[in-house]
């Protein structure tokens, strides 16, 4: 456990020194500042202002997760850091888990900075303290953690460039699998092809369930059970991806 914590802490230290991370965060902050101007364009209509802010946080967090998840693992292999760490009494499983938790902390760091700016924006626009907005950001964070786990999993067997392609693909497909299933039902797709679509729907990471932005923007009721199941889904999927990553990494010759 201590080893995991030490690797996580070092990952955090290493990644927060990255200039590109600050670049993304600064762009995120600039966007939230720009939302002040956008809110004037929509006559300060609060649901619209919230939609701009929450989407901005989501978008920039996704960039941070994609950047961290697909590069951090490779950097350690490239810079031979992994040899140094694994020569100590540290297992490969501990290394993978340490990387994951460390990257989650970096993501949390970026999320907190952007969230503070967002809360400030909503307060400035007389929207009060946006508790539901924070809940939506927490759900976004969960989605990004799953996203990171997938990136680490892919990084264990493919190149950095392919990791970016696969992870971006998951991001896109994870949001459209529900629509694909609906479309298949609408056009009356049957037989084996429909079964394949169903397998895709149930097995592929379904990221739509982490979209609680409607809850914050439109006050659409989201049952507690939905929240609980979404959290459980993320936890189980992350365990699955990290287990698979550990398994592959264990077999890998380095």
């Amino acid at each position: 456990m201590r080893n995991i914590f030490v690797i996580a802490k070092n990952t955090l230290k290493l990644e927060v020194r990255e200039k590109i991370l600050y670049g993304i965060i600064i762009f995120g902050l600039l966007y939230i500042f720009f939302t002040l101007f956008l809110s004037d364009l929509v006559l300060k209509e609060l649901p619209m202002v919230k939609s701009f802010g929450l989407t901005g946080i989501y978008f920039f967090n996704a960039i941070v997760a994609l950047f961290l998840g697909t590069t951090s693992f490779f950097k350690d292999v490239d810079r031979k850091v992994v040899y140094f760490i694994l020569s100590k009494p540290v297992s490969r499983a501990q290394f993978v888990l340490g990387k994951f938790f460390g990257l989650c902390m970096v993501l949390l760091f970026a999320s907190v900075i952007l969230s503070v700016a967002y809360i400030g924006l909503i307060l400035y626009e007389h929207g009060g303290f946006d508790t539901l907005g924070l809940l939506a950001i927490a759900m976004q964070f969960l989605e990004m953690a799953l996203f990171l786990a997938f990136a680490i999993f892919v990084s264990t067997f493919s190149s950095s460039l392919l990791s970016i392609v696969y992870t971006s693909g998951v991001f896109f497909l994870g949001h459209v699998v529900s629509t694909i299933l609906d479309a298949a039902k609408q056009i009356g797709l049957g037989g084996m092809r429909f079964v394949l679509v169903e397998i895709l729907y149930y097995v592929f990471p379904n990221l739509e369930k982490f979209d609680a932005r409607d809850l914050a923007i439109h006050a659409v009721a989201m049952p507690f059970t939905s929240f609980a199941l979404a959290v459980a889904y993320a936890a189980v999927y992350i365990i699955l991806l990290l287990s698979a990553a550990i398994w592959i990494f264990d077999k890998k010759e380095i």
Partner: protein
Amino acid sequence: MATARSFRFSKSVLLALLLLLIVFLQYEYDATKVPLAPSASGSGVSPLMIRMADLGFSPAIASFLWATTMPEILDLFRDRTEYLGDEAFVNAVDPKMSYPYAFSVLTLPAVPTKAFPDGLKDAMVIGNRGLQTADPDWRIAYYMAMNYYLGLNDMKDALLYFDIAARTPGVPQFAERFSLNFGIGSNQRETTKELWTTIRDSTNDEFTKERAQTYIDHLDDLDIIQAAAAQYKEQYGVYPTSTSELVAKGILSAIPQDPFGFTFIINKDGTSGIDLNKLPSYILTEPAT
């Protein structure tokens, strides 16, 4: 060797079990999912296509689109009708965003009739679409009621839509007070009462029937007080300054209890009305933002 194989086997079983658990969680989640609001029909835009590409960004995309669509309302003065198509597009992207509906209901009827003859009709179509799909927003029903009354001279529908506005969560004080008391002036009261009676007697919906009866009771109370004030003048030569004088002089046994909780007053000309300084507590409570 055998141990290593069994370890590998148990790992595979674990991964398969986790995958099964994921399928189960997805299945359970679907059972709790809140369905999306239906998209605007007849917009010429496939909501499926929009949702295919939106990656969960639809509220923000709709807001961005709205920022560019709103100024197009001015183009209607130049006989360019892109606004209508683009507004429907915004509704299709995020059917729950209420402001585009409210804005259209308010502004479309103001477009000069010659250049754009269907402004009022289109406003009502958009408004009804908003009432069915958007977040509860008192402005949609309130502006529609205004249009019915001022633009279409349709007092009956104006009353119904003012009632919807008054019942919408978050309605501000002034709008709720105005909506509940629309048509109570002594020169309009009889017509208003007749219309509510028609609504009550012609609907099969129990809630509307009950609601119409509440308005009729509200108007009856105002009539009772006005009649009592007239009787007071006959007896004492002047109108009473307050409703309590009617009870004190034995003209009324008690001041009627208003079903909406307003306090009645008697104006200088003997007509009855409501006291704007003593509003019911549920109206005085600030609406949630």
